[in-house]
C-alpha cells in the first residue's frame, strides 16, 4: 500500500485532483465527513489528510511514503526527504514586508517578526544584516504596526492583507509552491509506483 499524506484544505483538494488524473484516484476522499484516512485497495493507495505543516514530518518519519508540502515548510524544517517534483500549484512567495515608507536604519539591529525563523535568519545572514528574530505563530502582520518588530518575513500570496494593514513587500526571498516529497526508504521499496505517479504528475505540470 502506498501511503500518501495530503495537506488539508483547498491546496490538498487541488493536489488530489492531480493525483486522481494521474491514475491514483480514491473517490471516497472527497465525500463530506470527518474521516481522515481513505483506502483504494484496488489501486494500492491510502490517502490521509494532515495539517499542511505536518506533511513533511509524516513523510520523513515514514508514516507516509509520499506527500505534498510547501517549499516554505521544506526550507524551514529541512526534513530528510526526496523532493521529486515542483507541482507548480499553491504558488506564492516568501518576502520581507514593512510599513509603507519604511527605511532600514543600518545603525540598529533589525527586528524581524516571523513564523519562519530559519528562512529569515538564512536570508539576513546571506546579506550580512544583523537581526533580532521575534518568532510568532500567527497574525504576523500586526507586529510592525504595534512596534513589536521593524519588518516581517512571511508568505505573500496576493498582497491584499499587507495592503489592508499599510504594509508592502520590500524584498522577495524565494518563490514558494507545493512539492511532491518522498520518504527516502519508502522510495526504495515502492519505486515503480512512486515513479509512475511522479511521471503522471510531471506531465500534468507540463500541460498546465
Amino acid at each position, binding site marked *: 500500500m502506498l501511503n500518501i499524506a495530503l495537506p488539508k484544505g483547498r491546496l490538498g483538494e487541488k493536489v488530489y485532483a492531480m493525483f486522481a488524473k494521474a491514475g491514483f484516484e480514491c473517490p471516497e476522499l472527497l465525500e463530506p465527513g470527518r474521516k481522515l484516512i481513505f483506502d483504494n485497495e484496488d489501486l494500492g493507495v491510502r490517502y490521509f489528510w494532515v495539517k499542511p505543516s505536518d506533511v513533511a514530518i509524516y513523510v*520523513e*518519519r*515514514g508514516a507516509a511514503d509520499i506527500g505534498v508540502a510547501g517549499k516554505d515548510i521544506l526550507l524551514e524544517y529541512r526534513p*530528510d*526527504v*526526496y*523532493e*521529486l*517534483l*515542483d507541482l507548480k500549484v499553491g504558488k506564492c512567495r516568501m518576502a520581507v514586508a514593512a510599513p509603507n515608507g519604511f527605511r532600514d536604519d543600518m545603525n540598529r539591529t533589525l527586528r524581524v517578526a516571523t513564523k519562519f525563523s530559519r528562512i529569515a535568519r538564512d536570508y539576513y545572514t546571506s546579506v550580512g544584516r544583523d537581526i533580532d528574530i521575534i518568532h510568532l505563530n500567527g497574525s504576523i502582520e500586526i507586529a510592525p504596526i504595534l512596534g513589536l518588530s521593524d519588518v516581517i518575513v512571511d508568505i505573500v500570496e496576493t498582497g491584499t492583507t499587507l495592503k489592508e494593514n499599510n504594509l508592502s513587500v520590500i524584498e522577495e526571498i524565494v518563490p514558494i509552491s507545493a512539492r511532491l516529497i*518522498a*520518504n*527516502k*526508504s*519508502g*522510495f*526504495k*521499496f515502492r519505486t515503480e509506483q512512486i515513479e509512475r505517479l511522479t511521471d503522471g504528475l510531471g506531465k500534468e505540470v507540463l500541460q498546465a
Partner: protein
Amino acid sequence: MQIDDSVMTRQERISFMLRSLYSGHGYERYRMSKFEEYDLYSRNKDFLFSDGVITFTDTTGRLMALKPDVTLSIVKNRKDTPGTLQKLYYHENVYRVSAAADGFREQTQVGLECMGEVNDTCIAEVLRLAVESLRLCSAEFVLEISHLGILNAFVDAIAPDEKVKQAILDCAGQKNLHGISGICRENHLAEGAGNALIRLLSLYGTPRTVMPKIRELAEEYGAGEMAAQLGRAVAGFTGSDLENKILIDFSATGDLRYYNGVAFKGFISGIPGSVLSGGQYDKLMRKMGRKDRAIGFAVFLDMLERLTEEETDRA
C-alpha cells in the same frame, strides 16, 4: 555456561551476529576510549553527523568530549601502514544531537574500517559485508551505491563556485532535479552540464541495468576510470541472489571535503531512514596527515528498534 539468547534484545543479537560476521572475515576488534580531546572534533566539525558535542574538563584541565564519531578517533590514533591493509571493526556508543530527541542522544554503532592499501578487492569486500550486514537484520533491504568522484566531476563541470556547487549537491541528495535546473538557470550556468547531471541522477537501478549508461555518460565528463572502478566494485553482485538488492543511485551523497570514491547507504523496508552508511574517505585521511587510503561503514543499531521479531527471523 550456556548463554540463553532469548534474554537478549534484538539489537544485542544483531550486534553479536555482525561482530561474528566481521571477525570471520579477518577484521580485528578495535576498542577505544569513550572520550577524545575536543580539539579533534572542532577541527573536523563538518565530518560529524550532527552539530554539537558534549564536552567536559578532565582532571588535568584538558577540554574533552564524549565521542560523537568513531572513524575520526580510529584515524587519529592509528599510524599509516604502507603496503598493508588493516581491517578493524568496532562496537561503540556515540553521543550526537538528535533532531528527533531535541537534544543529545546515545547511539550504538557496529561498523568496520579498512585502512592502508585499499584496492578494488577490498572495496568489493566492504560492499559485500555491508550487504551481508543488512541481510542479517532483515530480508527486505536495499544497498544504494554511488561514486562521489563521478558526482563531483559532473558538478564541477556545472559550477566553479563552492556555494553554488554545495546547493547543487544538496539538490542531488534530495533527487531535486527541478532544483538543479533552477540553480543553473538563476546562475546562468552551462545548461548542457546541468542536463548531464540530471541524466546521471535519473539513472538509478541495478548495476546490470544502469552501469552501461553511466560508463557512457561518465566518459564525456572525464570520469570514465571512476565509472570503471564503480563497475568493478559492484560486478560481484551481478548474477548473484543479491543482484536486486543493489541499486546504483547518485543521490547517495556525502561531504566532498572528506569523502571520495564509492559511497553507500543501506535501507530496510519499514524503517524510515538509512540504517547503514559508509564510503571511501581518503580525503579525511589526507586532512589528518595520513597517506593510507580508507573505506568503512557503520550500522546504526538504534534504527533497528522498530524491526519486528518476524522480520529479523525471516532474515
